């Protein structure tokens, strides 16, 4: 049976892993390649880098990080953040990234999904969706969850699939940072209408939250940042919690 995937996310700014995407009071946590290597050796099934740098110089830094990661980390890794064109995708994939994540740029220009999937194959294209509950549905948010596009998140996920996305990275703006568990109703709503893997993100505060989302929905993977970086819980602890609840995970 295919295993449910546990994925640590590393927010990278100017070549360093930082705590949170909240731009106030960023704290440096360490070297991205070293941290990715440590997590992969501890049993992480994949690694996600989210580049939150704002400058062009930093874009070159992330390419160097990708090259080093490809040499030193032997599990798949995705790079997202600031991917706006086929050229951006080419640069990251040629440097050795397995997949690229596109978010705001795909909302502005959905054709980017189609073009990326045609050029590199669907398996390389992860469409990241930040969703927020508005009345009885969810809206797609951009600009780090601050700007409401008014687009229906469920319909957007379906469109992304039709355009050739290989996976959806689904973050709940409502649960992100709250540490009270994944957004089960949002995750279920998306997973039930598409036929590509979904990675749930936002809200993990405890290993049991992974077991909970895998039990309550057919989601393929769960992603978290702070519980791993703050050494609150290890990847191993998360996998043990999943296994205890009967969830099939890869033991490393």
């Amino acid at each position: 049976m295919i295993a449910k995937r546990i994925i640590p996310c590393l927010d990278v700014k100017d070549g360093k892993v930082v705590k949170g995407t909240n731009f106030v009071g960023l704290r440096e946590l360490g070297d991205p390649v070293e941290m990715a290597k440590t997590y992969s050796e501890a049993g992480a099934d994949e690694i996600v880098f989210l580049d939150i740098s704002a400058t062009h110089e930093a874009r070159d830094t992330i390419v160097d990080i990708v090259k080093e990661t490809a040499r030193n980390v032997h599990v798949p890794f995705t790079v997202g953040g600031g991917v706006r064109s086929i050229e951006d995708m080419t640069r990251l994939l040629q440097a050795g990234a397995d997949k690229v994540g596109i978010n705001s740029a795909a909302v502005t220009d959905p054709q980017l999904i189609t073009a990326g999937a045609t050029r590199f194959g669907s398996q390389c294209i992860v469409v990241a969706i930040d969703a927020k509950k508005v009345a009885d549905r969810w809206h797609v948010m951009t600009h780090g969850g601050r700007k409401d596009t008014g687009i229906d998140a469920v319909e957007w996920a379906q469109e992304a699939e039709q355009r050739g996305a290989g996976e959806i990275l689904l973050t709940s703006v409502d649960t992100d940072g709250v540490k009270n568990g994944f957004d089960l109703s949002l995750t279920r709503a998306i997973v039930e209408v598409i036929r590509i893997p979904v990675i749930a993100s936002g809200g993990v505060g405890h290993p049991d939250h992974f077991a909970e989302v895998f039990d309550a929905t057919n989601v393929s993977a769960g992603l978290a940042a702070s519980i791993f970086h703050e050494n609150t819980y290890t990847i191993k602890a998360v996998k043990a919690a999943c296994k205890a609840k009967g969830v099939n995970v890869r033991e490393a």
Partner: protein
Amino acid sequence: MIAIIDYGMGNVASVQTAFENLGYQVVLTDDHATLRKSSHIILPGVGSFQAAMIEIESRNLKKILIELAETKPFLGICLGMQLLFTEGTEGGLTKGLNLIPGSVDRIDTAHILPHIGWNQLQVTDLVPSFQAFNDEFVYFVHTFAAKTAKEYIVATTDYGGEVTAIVRKGNVFGIQFHPEKSATIGGEIMKTFLEEVKK
């Protein structure tokens, strides 16, 4: 020296590093003279079957790959594994290298596709040295898979039906998943291939 075939289908840096880490010199090439001098041939690849065969033919590689497979240890990885077979249907019916009889079709499953993630190997008794990997998790990313005779199947995986994972015919091996992305186990599988073809 191990030669990785350079034909523009997907990133090969990780495959190259994986063999280098096992102590081999590795060259990425499509040069016929270099290929003839190499000890092993690795055919990687990510993309569609038809696009890959078009690239192989336009770079004048088809004939030499078939010739090299007669004498040298040969390993196809992911799409490169699929190209070892007689034909494939991805992108339209296309002839492959026909080094192993069989066809490559969309995976017949009720589960979602692509088949992405870590799945467990069920190893047959065809190549005893691979039995150490029974039940181990390896990383798959694919929508199409090979259908071939039992006599060539080293390992399968279960994805709502049996999916071919490792094949062998003589000195030609094929691995559907990504050993270079399958953590420590992946490295051990590549090492086992290298040891097996020494015999």
